[in-house]
């Protein structure tokens, strides 16, 4: 007998639709029949959605013959905060874009800010930059690269699923004003983080030069969006499979060598890339901003886990940043601190890849619960 997810709704009165959410693996018909017997109900409508990877989660709507009364003292209103995913699509192999319903955050968010996300009850809190927002629709866009357990799990979610906790907007917004010529550099998924700032820079009347770097063509993301917001766009790939062959710093160096006036540089991507950009602009004293990615827990300034050292001073990236003057940042320390949990991260990822079932069950929030909000999730 396979595993059954713990999500069973409780009804107050009468003959009302009853929700169940079941993980089906092995002999499906047998599973279904067993599950339905357990509920002593009959199947009313089945299979609202089905997902392909690894195993299947199905939602059934059942009609319960006998209303189940809540026991005295059983909490019925523990409905957790939920943020429904409106749209999701892969931008490249392991980079996925999500549009998530979060009206309050959508209204307040400015370029450069981020959210902290927790996917399920046993999950960790991870920071993700807000790439875009739509105030009318009340949605924010986040772009996630599947690098470890939590991001890979998140990337298995689809439109219709929900994220348990999304908090934000956090951090200080980017400094946006008319600088003149601004070079925006995005490396890998950093492009997604640089993109909103590039848009804001353009709107502020700057001449925006964008340099986007990736290992190869298949990892380039948001090319059309970035092209639309840039006055000049340079694509760089490490293997030359698209655009020019080489690193983003080579292009930046070339622009400087051509004698182009550059008033402001924003670089977002892997730490070695940001450090290299800082070294290119340092001799020319071009103001350079980087968006740092230290380990975070709460994201509201209460723990200092994300502390970075800028010009010898201790700063909390979640409240003082995440953007800092690249010429002042202690990158070596940032790299060392980011390695702190490497073994544990590796273990988690390996365990997840061997058996993602439990986590997927936790992360999957039944459609039916959204359809029938009077049925609280996971109350028994």
């Amino acid at each position, binding site marked *: 007998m396979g595993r059954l997810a713990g999500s069973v709704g409780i009804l107050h009165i009468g003959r009302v639709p009853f929700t169940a959410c079941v993980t089906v693996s092995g002999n499906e018909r047998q599973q279904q029949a067993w599950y339905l017997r357990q509920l002593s109900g009959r199947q009313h409508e089945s299979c609202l959605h089905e997902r392909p990877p690894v195993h299947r989660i199905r939602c059934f709507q059942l009609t319960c013959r006998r209303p189940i009364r809540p026991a005295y003292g059983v909490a019925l209103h523990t409905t957790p*905060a939920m943020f429904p995913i409106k749209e999701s699509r892969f931008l490249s192999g392991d980079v996925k874009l999500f549009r998530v319903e979060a009206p309050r955050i959508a209204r307040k968010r400015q370029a450069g800010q981020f959210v902290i996300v927790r996917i399920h009850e046993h999950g960790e809190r991870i920071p993700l930059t807000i790439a875009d927002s739509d105030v009318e629709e009340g949605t924010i866009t986040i772009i996630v690269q599947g690098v470890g357990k939590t991001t890979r799990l998140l990337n298995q979610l689809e439109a219709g699923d929900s994220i348990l906790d999304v908090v934000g907007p956090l951090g200080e917004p980017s400094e946006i004003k008319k600088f003149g010529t601004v070079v925006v550099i995005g490396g890998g998924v950093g492009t997604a983080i640089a993109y909103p700032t590039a848009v804001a820079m353009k709107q502020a009347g700057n001449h925006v030069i964008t340099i986007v770097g990736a290992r190869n063509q298949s990892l380039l993301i948001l090319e059309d969006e970035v092209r639309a917001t840039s006055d000049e766009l340079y694509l760089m790939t490490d293997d030359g499979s698209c655009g020019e062959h080489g690193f983003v710093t080579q292009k930046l160096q070339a622009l400087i060598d051509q004698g182009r006036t550059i008033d402001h540089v924003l670089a977002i991507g892997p730490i070695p890339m940001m450090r290299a950009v800082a070294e290119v602009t340092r001799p020319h004293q071009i103001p350079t901003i980087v968006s740092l990615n230290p380990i975070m*827990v709460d994201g509201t300034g209460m723990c200092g886990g994300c502390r970075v050292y800028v010009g010898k001073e201790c700063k909390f990236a979640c409240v003082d940043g995440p953007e800092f003057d690249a010429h002042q940042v202690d990158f070596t320390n940032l790299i060392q601190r980011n390695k702190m949990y490497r073994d544990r991260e590796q273990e988690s990822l390996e365990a997840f890849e061997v058996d993602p079932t439990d986590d997927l069950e936790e992360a999957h929030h039944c459609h039916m619960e959204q359809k029938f909000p009077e049925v609280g999730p996971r109350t028994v």
Partner: protein
Amino acid sequence: MVDKLPPKERTKIPRQVMPEQEACQRAHNFDEVNLGLTEAIAQRESQRCLTCADPKCTHGCPVGVQIREVVDLVREGEYLSAAAKLREDNVLPAVTGRVCPQENQCEGACVLARRFNSLAIGHIERFVADYERQTGQVGLPERAPLTGKKVAIVGSGPAGLSCAGDLSLKGHEVTVFEALHEIGGVLIYGIPEFRLPKEIVRQEVENMRAMGIDFQTNVVIGKTVTIDELFNEEGYDAVFIATGAGLPKFMNIPGEQLAGVYSANEFLTRVNLMKAYDPDQYDSPIYDCRGRNVAIVGGGNTAMDSVRSALRLGAKNAYIIYRRSEEEMPARGEEVHHAKDEGVQFMNLHNPLEFVGNEEGNLSGVKLVKMELGEADESGRRRPVPIEGSEFVMPIDMAVVAIGTGANPLVQSTTPDMATNKWGYIVADEETLRTNKRGVFAGGDIVSGAATVILAMGAGRVAARSMHEFLETGQW
């Protein structure tokens, strides 16, 4: 039903002791250390109460629990009524019965304390609350008719919860905003499971939900919504700011940036809120303390919680590094005692000068200097003075800095027209807890600086009273 004994007889009963987990066993698990009174012990303890005509204990309690009445009901075996009585003044009895420093409050004021041992009020309170919870028959107080007024509470720690409870009973529509994903503030992220099981906090929050209070998690007031927007766009009539003192202080000594150096807030948040002690079930990682040397800097309750958590995570040696002597330690005597029994090593009169790291940027040791006590300073405590030439390096793999917290500036920075003092704490009138901004009240640690759970709850009650008055009269 037990008859009252004559006072002489009552004083002959020794103060009853609460059973606890054996030190050798509890040092390796996160289960609660104190096991709670049995009904028989609670009965016997309640016999000791002298039922004073003017009970000093109630004056000693920051929220003014009617202790004599509660103890009377316990003696009569009316535990559920006792719980209901308790709830009239205290929304979190199961919590305060566990974490209050009763020796400085109700029990310190108890008449028995003068010649005998004080009545174990905290233990009785805890017994009553646990009894009520276990029966599932929670006697929630009656709510007044709805007034139609909306109140926003910023922060769901002890101050916010007690204010929310009182205002809701007075018939106002209360919404509590919390930045984290769980309700309870320090009760959830700060105080460890072995002192306060999180399930108890969750149950108390459920009780408050049942009272009609709305809780909204993941809302950072100042970022997601500002105070002004609460009034103008979301239509609240009054706001209570109870964001606490959650900004960690560091020592600003060399090497604090090394991997392996934690603030107590981060360490405890990972352990308590994110349950990093259970890596098979939960995803948040924490430094692998197994077989390592761990040092905690500080001498308060936070330091004790951190050091005892580190032991339970498997530390080989867990040290407390404190610059004064044990006498000056601000931690509760009970906690220091528990920590010692569990095998914590106290290095009093030592001060860290520097954290030492290896070439990979990981912590490898701490440079300490021995201290001696000099003249008394203005606070009356003898000032620790370093002994010259006594520096030495102690090898450690992980350190937790637990030297206090300051005011988190998130709310204040986006509410520029609200007055703060030079340390960033909000300025509020002592009696009414009004700030200089109309309709905005503030209380708890964000006004007083880091203090105790029960003092914050006291502030919440004061705020509730004064907010109710403002909502009724509209006068500022």
